[in-house]
């Protein structure tokens, strides 16, 4: 014990002995940075005691080299000049830990992203920049202080936002592992977009037959609390203990009493566009969302209801009370949050050339609803204009995808879903003439190539070339395009045109991102921390994302991500406590004038003025960004690990010798 104490003292008080390690990263860094020069340069900097280079510093051998130096050379600070701390900081911190050196006495200089990659054509300047950055890392390392991780207790409960296929899987996995799950859904039923699908690729099994049993299991699992027809109103708190406020929209139906008989809908005189069937038919103002709805309960659409109270009188269990208008609020605490809010479809009106106004130009989801036995046409494919069976159908791919004017990304699922539609139609109507106009066919998933092959065997015709225009010719549509192989303009006189519309971030995504303090990318989808290392984590600790709210994906991937998020949340909550980085702000009370500048600037709402006339930092919320520290007029706030002294040393290193 005495020995460790003396060592700790040594680490902070004596003149630091800095070890500098420069990584080649194969040719990733060494290809444009002269490693030898950086090594020689570093040797002459104050407090540096060891400088070494390694082909792959993060290898076991490389890490052992650092540990050896800590042990034999008495190295008390480590500077690694290598890749990004985003991916490798944690790895090297652990190396220090296992070498019995406090893990915060480590500094990483990213000479890959900042030198070798951007300046690969200019080796001299890439090397010079690397030297300067390494120098600034060394200067900062001299001032590093040992810090201790903080422990935080974590509630063993999770909020899942969105009851689509991804959220359902996340909720079920967590509930099976023994966690309490709150599943919040905006619509009157869980099920999401998958509930609207007829069949699913690549197995062509009935969508409802896969989904419905899972939905039933959700409703029968005691650990899962369904909060339906509800939206997130407010989120506060932090990892381990988030406080959630949910707005339960008024249904005017007592769900304890409602038995889902549907009598109310029968007597209701108000007809409303049925969103579930893509507005192709009508529902009533009091309605059950669809046949397999979970929960099987009626909802009064308050915006459309005319308050005639016919439903109230008809309901045999007395469940309806039209006079109820107020929304209700539910509050609870959870240890973690999983966001699975899914996607919205691209609005094809934005591509005027595709004439979506025409009744016989429809979207893929509209076709899907028509194909479904419980859909508006009971499974028959009929031209919306006259109810006749179409003979020739053209599918137009990439509507709103791979298009700088709308969405530049590929929506991933459209190729395979159009092939699915074409195949199912050919099976039902072998004489039907079906064309798929594509740019590239991207049938990338397991079993999808075979799926595509069978479509060709069934006689679906694939034409490479983007369609530029659709014109009316009598009661038919002329689809004009180009055939890449023929090198000629082509046209198809079609009875029905189906637009393979893109997947877009859901309309409420931005608002939810603000509530949860998570980021969205330029396309509006929620952003993961790293596509490979942390694919379901967000920049708010304890909040995870899964499914199509993260980016376009098909059902198998959405399910996998839902399960991945459940696993990530579970590993966070399982011990009931976690260690968090001590990178938070500390206030020196004697210097603080309570001007509250910091409070107004803090993005994370981590600083609060308390009843005891004090400014207090919530260390679980604080991200250690340092804004408060920089803004504090009296210098009362110290940002751990980014102290003024440490930052000043970095600046000194970079400006020394410049006049």
């Amino acid at each position, binding site marked *: 014990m005495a020995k460790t104490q003396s060592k700790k003292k040594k680490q902070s008080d004596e003149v630091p002995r800095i070890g500098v390690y420069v990584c080649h990263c194969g040719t990733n860094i060494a290809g444009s940075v002269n490693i030898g020069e950086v090594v020689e340069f570093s040797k002459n900097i104050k407090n540096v005691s060891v400088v070494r280079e390694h082909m792959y510093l993060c290898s076991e051998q490389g890490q052992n080299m650092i540990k050896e130096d800590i042990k034999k050379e008495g190295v008390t600070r480590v500077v690694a000049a290598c890749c990004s701390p985003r991916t490798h900081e944690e790895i090297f911190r652990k190396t220090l830990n296992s070498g019995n050196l406090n893990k915060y006495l480590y500094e990483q200089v990213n000479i890959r992203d900042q030198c070798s990659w951007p300046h690969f054509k200019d080796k001299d300047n890439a090397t010079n920049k690397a030297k300067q950055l390494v120098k600034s890392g060394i200067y900062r390392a001299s001032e590093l202080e040992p810090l201790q991780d903080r422990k935080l207790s974590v509630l063993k409960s999770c909020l899942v936002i969105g009851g689509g296929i991804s959220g359902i899987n996340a909720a079920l996995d967590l509930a099976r592992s023994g966690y309490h799950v709150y599943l919040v859904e905006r619509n009157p039923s869980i099920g999401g977009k998958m509930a609207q699908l007829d069949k699913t690729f690549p197995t062509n099994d009935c969508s409802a037959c896969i989904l419905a049993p899972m939905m039933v299991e959700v409703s029968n699992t005691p650990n899962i609390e369904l909060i339906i027809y509800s939206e997130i109103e407010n989120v506060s708190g932090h990892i381990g203990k988030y406080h959630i406020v949910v707005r339960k929209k008024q249904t005017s139906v007592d769900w304890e009493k409602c038995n889902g008989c549907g009598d109310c809908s029968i007597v209701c005189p108000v007809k409303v566009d049925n969103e579930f069937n893509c507005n192709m038919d009508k529902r009533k103002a009091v309605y059950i969302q669809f046949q397999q709805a979970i929960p099987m309960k009626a909802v009064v659409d308050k915006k459309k209801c005319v308050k005639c109270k016919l439903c109230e009188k008809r309901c045999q269990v007395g469940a309806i009370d039209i006079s109820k208008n107020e929304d209700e609020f539910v509050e609870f605490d959870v240890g973690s949050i999983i966001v699975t809010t899914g996607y919205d479809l691209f609005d094809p009106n934005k591509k005027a050339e595709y004439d979506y106004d025409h009744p016989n130009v429809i979207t893929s989801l509209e076709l899907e609803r028509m194909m479904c036995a419980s859909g508006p046409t009971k499974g028959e494919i009929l031209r919306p204009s006259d109810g006749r069976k179409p003979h020739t159908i053209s599918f137009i791919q990439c509507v709103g995808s791979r298009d700088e004017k709308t969405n530049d990304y590929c929506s991933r699922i459209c190729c395979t879903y159009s092939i699915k539609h074409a195949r199912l139609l050919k099976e039902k109507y072998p004489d039907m003439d079906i064309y798929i106009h594509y740019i590239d066919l991207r049938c990338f998933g397991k079993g999808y190539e075979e799926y595509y*092959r069978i479509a*060709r065997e069934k006689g679906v*015709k694939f034409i490479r070339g983007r369609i530029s225009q659709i014109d009316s010719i009598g009661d038919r549509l002329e689809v004009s395009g180009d055939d890449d192989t023929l090198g000629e303009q082509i046209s198809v006189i079609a009875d029905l045109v189906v637009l393979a519309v893109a997947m877009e971030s859901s309309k409420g995504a931005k608002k939810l991102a603000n509530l949860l303090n998570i980021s969205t990318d330029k396309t509006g989808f929620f952003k993961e921390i790293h596509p490979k290392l942390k694919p379901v984590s967000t920049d708010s600790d304890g909040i995870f994302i899964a499914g199509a709210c993260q980016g376009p994906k098909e059902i198998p991937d959405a399910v996998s991500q839902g399960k991945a998020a459940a696993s990530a949340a579970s590993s966070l909550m399982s011990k009931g406590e976690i260690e968090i980085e001590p990178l938070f702000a500390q206030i020196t009370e004697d210097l603080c004038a309570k001007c509250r500048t910091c409070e107004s600037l803090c993005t994370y709402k981590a600083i609060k003025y308390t009843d005891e006339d004090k400014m207090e930092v919530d260390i679980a919320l604080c991200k250690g960004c340092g804004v408060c520290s920089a803004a504090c007029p009296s210098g009362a706030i110290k940002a751990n690990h980014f102290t003024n002294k440490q930052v000043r040393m970095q600046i000194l290193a970079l400006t020394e010798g410049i006049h």
Partner: protein
Amino acid sequence: MKIILNNTNKDLVDKVIENGGKRVTECFQCGMCASGCPVASDTDHKIKRTMHQVLLGLDEQILDKKAIWLCTTCFMCLERCPQNAGPTDVVIALRRMSAEKGIIPEAQIEVANNIYHLGHAVTVKKGISLREKVDAPPLTTAGSDKKYIDEIQKIVDSTHAVKLLKIRKEWKPKGDDVIACD
């Protein structure tokens, strides 16, 4: 000219399959057939395009044209096609269908008549005299005995190829480099 795809021959694919191009629908236009084709650069025979034209039912663009007869049937495309779509088989099927319509280039008729009357596609008189010069033993070929040729004619006569290939009973081979048994 703009091609209206509705007006194409919807039975073409089935016909090609019936005539031996059994896997034509496997084609997904990767272009490997055309990239290795020895005649593509110098002729109108563009096999990738032909495969696509079959799938679209554009028979007029194929059957009435000379291009399918320019294939050397080297089988390179058939060997290398990653989908096993058998482009050469498709070409042969198309030739069969073309012949049924009475469309065969004159050179092919010449070859057919050579085989019918001489037992050989090409004539070999010079080769035989060369063998004598170097004391090589005489060669027995399909055309070296009348009875072999009778058999060939009997086979051809029993099929409707005799009509398709425009076999002429009164026929005189071109050129003087010809052997015919007595």
